[in-house]
C-alpha cells in the first residue's frame, strides 16, 4: 500500500513540477477539436451533436495514448525503471501507483477537453455534468489500466511510440463502444443506459485484474 502511495506521489510531483505531459495532452486535445471542426461537413448543431460523443471519445483515446507513451519514458533516464523493478515490493502496487497517476492526469485532460467540446459543438454537457463525469471516469479507468500495462511493454521495444497504439487500440474497442453509447444517451437526455454502464464496469474490472496480475511479467530488470 505504501508502495502505491509512493509511486503515485512521485509521478504526480514530477507532473506538477514540469507540466510537460499535461500541457502536451491538453494542447493536443484542443488541436483535435479544431481538426474535428474542419473534418466535419458544415452542419447544424443537432447534426454535430450526433457525432460529438464519438469524436469526444476519440480525442480522449488519442490524448491518453500521447500521455501513456510518456508514462515510462521518464523512467528510462538514469535507468530508473530497473530501480523500480529491483525494488523489493509487489510489482502490482507499482502498477497501481503508475496507473492511478495516469488516471488523474487523463481525468484532468478529459475535463478540459469536454469543456472545449461543449463550446465548439454546442453541447449541453453542464446540464448532465454528473452522469457524464461518471462515465468519463469509468472510461479513463480502463484506458489507464490498459495504457499503463502496455506502455511498460512498449517502452522496452524498438519503435515504442509506434507499437503502443497498435497494442492499445484493438483492446480499447469495448471500452470505447460502451463509453460512446453511454455519452450519446446522456447527451440526448435519456440518462445512463444500464447495458453500457454494466459493460463499462465489467471491462474496467477485467482490465484492472489482468493488468494488475500481469504487470509482474512485464516489468523486468
Amino acid at each position, binding site marked *: 500500500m505504501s508502495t502505491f502511495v509512493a509511486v503515485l506521489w512521485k509521478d504526480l510531483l514530477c507532473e506538477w513540477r514540469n507540466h510537460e505531459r499535461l500541457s502536451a495532452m491538453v494542447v493536443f486535445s484542443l488541436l483535435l477539436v479544431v481538426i474535428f471542426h474542419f473534418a466535419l461537413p458544415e452542419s447544424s448543431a443537432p447534426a454535430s451533436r450526433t457525432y460529438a460523443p464519438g469524436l469526444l471519445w476519440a480525442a480522449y483515446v488519442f490524448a491518453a495514448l500521447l500521455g501513456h507513451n510518456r508514462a515510462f519514458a521518464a523512467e528510462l533516464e538514469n535507468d530508473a525503471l530497473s530501480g523500480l523493478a529491483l525494488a523489493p515490493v509487489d510489482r502490482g502496487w507499482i502498477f497501481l501507483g503508475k496507473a492511478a497517476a495516469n488516471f488523474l492526469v487523463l481525468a484532468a485532460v478529459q475535463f478540459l477537453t469536454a469543456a472545449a467540446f461543449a463550446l465548439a459543438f454546442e453541447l449541453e454537457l453542464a446540464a448532465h455534468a454528473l452522469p457524464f463525469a461518471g462515465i468519463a471516469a469509468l472510461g479513463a479507468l480502463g484506458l489507464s489500466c490498459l495504457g499503463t500495462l502496455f506502455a511498460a511493454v512498449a517502452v*522496452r521495444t524498438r519503435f515504442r511510440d509506434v507499437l503502443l497504439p497498435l497494442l492499445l487500440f*484493438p*483492446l480499447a474497442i*469495448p471500452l470505447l463502444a*460502451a463509453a460512446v453509447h453511454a455519452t450519446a444517451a446522456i447527451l440526448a437526455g435519456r440518462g445512463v443506459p444500464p447495458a*453500457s454502464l454494466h459493460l463499462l464496469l465489467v471491462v474496467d474490472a477485467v482490465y484492472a485484474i489482468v493488468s494488475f496480475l500481469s504487470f509482474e511479467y512485464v516489468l523486468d530488470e
Partner: protein
Amino acid sequence: MTAPSPTLPLRRTLRICGALLLALAAAFAFCVWRAPEDATQGVIQKIFYLHVPLAFSAYLGFFLTALFGALFLWRGDERSDRLAAAAAEVGVLFCSLVLITGPIWAKGTWGRFWSWDARLTLTLLLWLIYVGYLLLRSFAEGGDRAARFAAVYGIAGIAVIPLNYFAIELSRGSLHPENLERGSLGAGMGLPFALGVVTSLVCFLFLLCLRIQVTALRRAEEQRLYASDA
C-alpha cells in the same frame, strides 16, 4: 568440415500430416464440387465450406496462443513459447483467409463486401489483436522478454473477445445465417462441411509443426554459429 545436420523435431508428424492433407484436400475438393447448389444463394454459397472451417482453425490458433502463453508464464519453458508463437502465426494466416473469403461470399449474397455485423467485426478485431501480437514479438528485443510480453498480450487478446462481443451487441444486430446453430444444413451439405473442418484442422496442424520445425532449425543454426565463434 560440415557440422552434422540437427535432428528435426516432428519429422514423422509432418510426414503423416502432409500425406493426410493431400488426401483430404482432394476428397474435400471433390465433395464441394459434387455438393448441391444452394437454392437461394447459388454457387457462391460453396465458399462456405472453406470460410467456416478456416474460421474454426483461426479461432483455435488464437486460443492456443493464449493457452501456451499462459503455460509459458506459469512454467517458463521455451517450448510453450515456441508453440504460442507458431499458433499465432498460423492463426493470423487462417484469419486473413477468413477475412478474404468472407467479403467474397458477402458480395454474392448481401450485395456488399463488408458490413459491421457482429461476427465480422469480432473477427476483424481478433485479427488486428493478433497482428499486433506478431508485431510485438518482432519489435521486442531479447528472447525471454519478447516471450513474456507476447504471452501477456495473447492472454489479454482472448480475454477481450466476450467484451468485444457485448460491445458490438450494444449497437448492432447480426446478418449471419443462424442455421448453423440449429444444425440444419441442407441435404448433401453436411459431408463437404465436415470434410472441410477436418481438412482445415489437419492443415493447421501441418503448418504449426512446420513453423515449430523452422524455429528449431533457426535455433540450432544460431547455436552452431555461436559454437564456431567461441
